[in-house]
């Protein structure tokens, strides 16, 4: 497997933004009327003018133990949940995917001018980066004839978010795609996802699990 850090970008027509997810972030759980839909579409247009989908990723051989996973000699992540997620895998892709700084500018702009629009654009951004991750993962899987386990991100479950720095440097994300880290391990641009996707052993059957199924936060407002 090629272990060089790769970069990836996608045009808007390749990333099908999950509108339902965007609405869920807005806590809309019913059919929307035409007026609202028109506003949403209008925001989507403006969003797509600002977005630039970029990712950097690399493959690692991994060693999974009960409560930690070693990514070659580069770094080791301590987490039972991650170990569980990657059990049986001998390799994983580490990636960082972003909608880029134009989206932050757009949301910031409306935060000052028209908050309702900022909130909609922010939700579209959250949904878009998820959809982009789906597209990225699908592309890597197809290109390499692989299947991934559900992706797992720093800060999720018992994987401490302080490992964000390791994951970002593994992908050289600052230099390759302009993703930086704030002092509290938050990524800027904000609509950015870093994650680990285990490569399923050859004969493993895929169970398509809902994104929320394995999450312990059952009170979450955004739960499917």
């Amino acid at each position, binding site marked *: 497997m090629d272990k060089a850090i790769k970069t990836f970008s996608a045009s808007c027509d390749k990333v099908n933004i999950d509108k339902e997810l965007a609405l869920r972030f807005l806590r809309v759980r019913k059919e929307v009327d035409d007026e609202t839909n028109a506003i949403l579409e209008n925001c989507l247009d403006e969003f797509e003018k600002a977005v630039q989908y970029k990712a950097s990723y690399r493959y690692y051989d991994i060693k999974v133990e009960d409560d930690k996973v070693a990514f070659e000699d580069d770094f080791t992540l301590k987490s039972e949940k991650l170990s569980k997620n990657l059990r049986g895998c001998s390799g994983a892709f580490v990636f960082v995917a972003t909608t880029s700084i134009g989206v932050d500018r757009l949301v910031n702009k409306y*935060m000052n001018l028209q908050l309702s629009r900022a909130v909609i654009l922010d939700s579209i951004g959250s949904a878009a980066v998820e959809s982009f991750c789906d597209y990225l993962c699908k592309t890597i899987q197809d290109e390499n004839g692989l299947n991934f386990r559900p992706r797992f991100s720093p800060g999720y479950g018992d994987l401490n978010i302080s490992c964000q720095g390791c994951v970002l440097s593994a992908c050289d994300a600052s230099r390759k795609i*302009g993703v930086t880290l704030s002092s509290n391990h938050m990524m800027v641009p904000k609509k950015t996802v870093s994650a680990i996707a285990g490569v399923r052993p050859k004969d493993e059957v895929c169970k398509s699990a809902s994104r929320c199924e394995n999450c312990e936060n059952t009170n979450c407002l955004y739960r499917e």
Partner: protein
Amino acid sequence: MDIRKRIQNEIVYIDGGLGSSLIKMGLPSGMAPEKWNIKEPRNIVDLHKEYINAGAQVLTTNTFGANELKLEDDEYSLEELVFSAVENAKVAIEESGKTKGEDVYVALSIGPCGKLLKPLGELDFEDAVKAFSKTAILGEKAGADLVIIETMSDTFEAKAALLAVKESTKLPVFVTVAYDESEKLMTGADPLTVIAMLEGLKADAIGLNCGLGPQQMKSIVEKYVKYSSTPVIVSPNAGMPKSVDGKTVYDVDENEFASVMKEIAGLGVHCLGGCCGTTPSYIKATVEATKDIKAKAIEKKNLTVVSSYTKAVEFKNKPVIVGERINPTGKKKLKEALRENRLDYILNEAVSQQDKGAKVLDINVGLPEIDEVKMLTDTVKAVQAVSDLPLQLDSSDPVALESAMRIYNGKPMINSVNGKKSSMDAIFPLVKKYGGVVVALTLDENGIPKTSNERVKIAEKIINEAEKYGIDKCDIVVDSLAMAVSSDKNSAKTTIESVRKLTDDLGVNTILGVSNISFGLPNREMLNSSFLTLCFENGLSSAIMNPLSAKMMEAYYSFCALKGLDDNFESYIAFASGQEVAVTKTESSDITLTYAIEKGFSKKAYEIALKLLESENPLDIINEKIIPALNTVGEGFEKNTVFLPQLLMSAEAAKSAFDAVKTAIKESENKSADKIVLATVEGDIHDIGKNIVKVLLENYGFEVIDLGRDVKPETVLQAVLENDVKLCGLSALMTTTVVSMEETIKLLKEKAPFCKIVVGGAVLTQEYADMIGASHYAKDAMESVRYAQTVFGK
């Protein structure tokens, strides 16, 4: 020889990849490369020596990440790392039998600090300057011959670094930035935008490195050579990385690299080097391939360009519209907004002028009773967060100008200098230091001359004086002053003549605040628009005017269309068809204020409220129409029949109705509102939720003291104490920042026990809120409002 001289007349070779070479030499992964300056100095010296052997004349030190913001090293100090890095380069030169500063130069490498600057990130501009200064001062002390600021992907950070080196050292400074395939920086700037800013700040050489291979860089290099009057540097990667047998290799070999570098050198580049993946053999091949190419003489391009962080505006054939509306002269509403520190009014003016076709925005916030230095600086920051247009910083106070020029992201326009010695003495040093295109008014100690010839003379005097500071004529735009035609019937004629002469005889760009011409006469737009056309026809390069005036824009678009300045009449057609739509859309429908608010029609709500004022008491409008409408929407939200964006749109509509009504409320009736402090806690930059709460609280009549995001516990406490506030709202997004929420609560409970604390945010739950000692947990914005109502007994 000073390297600045050398690069004027010859091609100079810089070394190639350092980090990628060190990894090949066995640098353990995860270890900061700078540590090897001390742990394995021999490896570094040997690599430098190989580069010298290959023909490199500039060694970049192993200090790319040596920055106090990036390198948290408990083993070595910044000083030790920088000194050892420069020492290693010096040793390599000595062991190679070369002379430092003559045959081979030591360049202190400064890379990005790894943090994004405000407003998008959390790093303050001046903190970035401080951090870069520290490294630069150490580098100079250690004996570096120059500084190379490299791989910058944000114009603002590049400006901070360049300013830092210039202010804290005497070293020559080169700056290279990293483009992606779209020929833009990560933060969106194209080549001209970057060149304008870096040349304005007087970098000694500018160019590009990293990001791309040589082939992909070619078209960007062409632009650099076309626009830049400063020597150009090109240091590509060895193509794209891939791994072979577990080792990272790059897909362009030294021969291919060198052959493209030969083409690049032929374009007129003065410094050639390499970045990631390039090794001494790449530099050797490049030196070989280009040794017969003679350096082209560097030509002044004489372009007049202003820029923001993503956009450059060139003063060329097509006149440039400078939006005049952010200037309190004669504008009651703006004056009020400035006095009340309401930036949202100004930001709306900025965006609407941009929407209507302004290409540059004038920013003047001078009022006798406000602190102009702070106001201008804050306004520039705020406007740059909502508009990507270049700004014209407009003030008569040089201190305010300097403060704004410093934090401006790009190359600004400056309004203005004039022919008085005192003015030139104050303004030109600023333009020299920070860069900019300066508006020069043709007046001096004797006032405004009556004749065009005398005005041209003053312009000449200003241009000559500017030259002494190294400010080129292309960075001066002359304003020959449009004076009211009503007080002197020849004044328009004189101004137009002056524009003609300035254009033809001096070859300088011109600008006019055109609206002055009609002062004291009726139907001013009629006169203004004709005057504008006359001036354009006589060569006027740019007009400071109101882009919201349809008449003025008609004159502008017509002129461009008639003079062949509008390809395919695109702008003209877009403008004309936009007007038709506007005409058909003005019919008014019979809707009520309540309906407008419930539906979230802001503009309508404002209009109806204004109209209602003719027949109703303002307080009745508020209590009987606005508040009930808000309540309906708020209750709907709580019952899940109205969702968040609708709630906010209604809130915005209610706010504009309030704005309309507020002006009619007598001071005596306007009882003071209950105050609430809001903040997103220290370390957290996600504040959208806090802003939602703010809008709703204001709707319900509370006065919100918004401290913003990333707020220290002490700042919250101070605001609570100073304003004697009974309720404070805190938001946090992540588990890591709930810790600082807890600290803030602890501090408030200890020092301001009278203040209740309501908390909210993505990770918070009731249990969590109880655990950290909050008075109340609000699961959404409406609940914050309800809680506030209970606290204040409403």
